[in-house]
């Protein structure tokens, strides 16, 4: 059965692309925190928990939010929807923050609200809570974006009937360097491509994942 990418978002270098169209761009932003806050405000998202998240969760949250604004998953039961994400540096960005709270014995103040984010899959947990996603979840690490691995992993979830829809992608943050890409994958017969954006049907395969990642 053919699987289709029914919506996607890419966030990188102060730029947000959703289904191929430019949604946000501000040249003069230098700080990551300012970038994600500006996107959150422009889209008028209302989710107070966003401000408690670490950088990687904020970026991944926005990427998933933008995708699911384009194409709803409301027609699926929570257990039919999966989420598989990947990146290069795991949670190193927040690991460094946690380490700063413990590397000096005279100022040893580790915090649970920082420590909980020292796992890359927390971003999956945040999106699952927001959208009531309860299906298969996994976080994979590769040096650079690996469209083949992601595609093979998600294909097996569909082949084994573990998912009927799946969010997947890449979310990488280290300091002010950041890239996120999230795509929604659905079976072709059940999926209706977003009318709003007119995204042309794209087969779910490594070539198209790499294309989305590189072109945007």
């Amino acid at each position, binding site marked *: 059965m053919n699987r289709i990418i029914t919506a996607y978002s890419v966030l990188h270098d102060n730029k947000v692309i959703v289904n191929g169209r430019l949604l946000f761009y501000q040249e003069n932003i230098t700080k990551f925190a300012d970038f994600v806050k500006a996107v959150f405000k422009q889209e008028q998202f209302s989710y107070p928990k966003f401000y408690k998240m670490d950088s990687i969760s904020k970026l991944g949250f926005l990427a998933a939010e933008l995708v699911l604004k384009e194409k709803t998953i409301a027609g699926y039961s929570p257990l039919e929807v999966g989420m598989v994400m990947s990146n290069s540096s795991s949670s190193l960005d927040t690991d460094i923050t946690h380490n700063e*709270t413990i590397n000096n014995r005279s100022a040893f103040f580790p915090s649970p609200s920082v420590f909980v984010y*020292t796992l890359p899959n927390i971003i999956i947990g945040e999106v699952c809570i927001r959208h009531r996603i309860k299906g298969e*979840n996994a976080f*994979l*690490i590769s040096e650079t974006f690996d469209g083949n691995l992601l595609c093979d992993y998600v294909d097996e979830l569909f082949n084994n009937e573990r998912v009927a829809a799946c969010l997947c992608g890449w979310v990488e943050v280290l300091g002010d360097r950041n890239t996120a890409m999230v795509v929604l994958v659905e079976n072709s017969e059940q999926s209706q491509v977003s009318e709003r954006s007119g995204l042309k049907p794209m087969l779910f395969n490594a070539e198209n994942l790499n294309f989305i990642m590189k072109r945007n």
Partner: protein
Amino acid sequence: MKPVYILNDNIITSLGFTTAENASSLDSGIIGIRTINDQEFYPGQIQLSLVDTVQLDLKFSAVLKVYQKNIPADSFTRLEKLFILSIHDVIKDHIVIAKNARTLLVISTTKGNINLLENRFKAIFSHKRLYLWELGRIIRQFFGFVNTPVIISNACISGVVAVMTATRFLQSGAFDHAVVTGGDIASEFVISGFQSFQALSTKPCKPFDLNRTGLSLGEGCGTMLLSTISGTAEVSPVRIAGAATTNDANHISGPSRTGEELSHAIKTVMKQAMVEPGQISYISAHGTATSFNDEMESKAVELSGLAHVPLNSFKGYWGHTLGAAGLVESVAAVFSLRNNTLYRSAGFEIPGVSAPVNVITTNHPASLTSCIKTASGFGGCNAAIIYQKD
């Protein structure tokens, strides 16, 4: 779908450097969790299960000689030594498997070489070593694996996800063999974090017990060699008959209140294996000994119709080994299956969860055919996997 068999395995914990050594400690009822009071390691007294460093270094130097590596032993980190020793023990009689293009390497870890953030290691190892793919590259290069390893970092279910991932790629025919390994070390980084959550017990942990007060951290490594080709006749063949993950979608650092999502994963693997609850002989639980985890897990077990099934947690022996736990505890569970032995859940005395679960209180022989291993972790993730005799 092709059946996937476990051909060989290894566990390294405080209780030994092989599956047999660890099992022998379980037979004798030895517990590896100790009181550690080492200011350089952690500012305060702490309960930990640690791998013996002297033995680790001796054994690692011997392995370097086997592979004719002209590299000093101390150019490898503690975690890299654990991974290499564990994998070596599993593939030493199947050495060609590493260099076969049809072999997949899957690595599970939560924190990798995270101790390299500590000032005392900064001058010795490069910053790059903190990246999990670099850890993967070092392991791959050591043995000469052909394929780039698949690296899973999914909190405390990482090990089970790694076995599941390898199983699916073998069943699809993409590979014939897989080496699946999971490891993590005890570090100030992780200890301080769990301590900040007030999740650590001041005594060796007591899974499912009324007086449990938290978890004990441990370190270790577990490895399995999987294949779509059945093993030799001298061991009773055990295969992976199903595996699934779910998410609670409830809280990032606390488990589901109902256990429904873990139960869904358990029911899914029983369905995949085509077995009824009455056919499950044993459950190797996650059993961290935190109040919330054990409570949730007991509810999930009851919801799955498995309240009667003998259950244990191995964490009372060697603590919570994080990214290694799914592998280490799976290997111990498979050992139990092969040897028709149930091990007592160390630390358990008085039932302390609201749902009725059948916690094992003495080591004893039993006729075992199938075992479910469960895991849950931060981020709301749950996993279940089922091991079955042919």
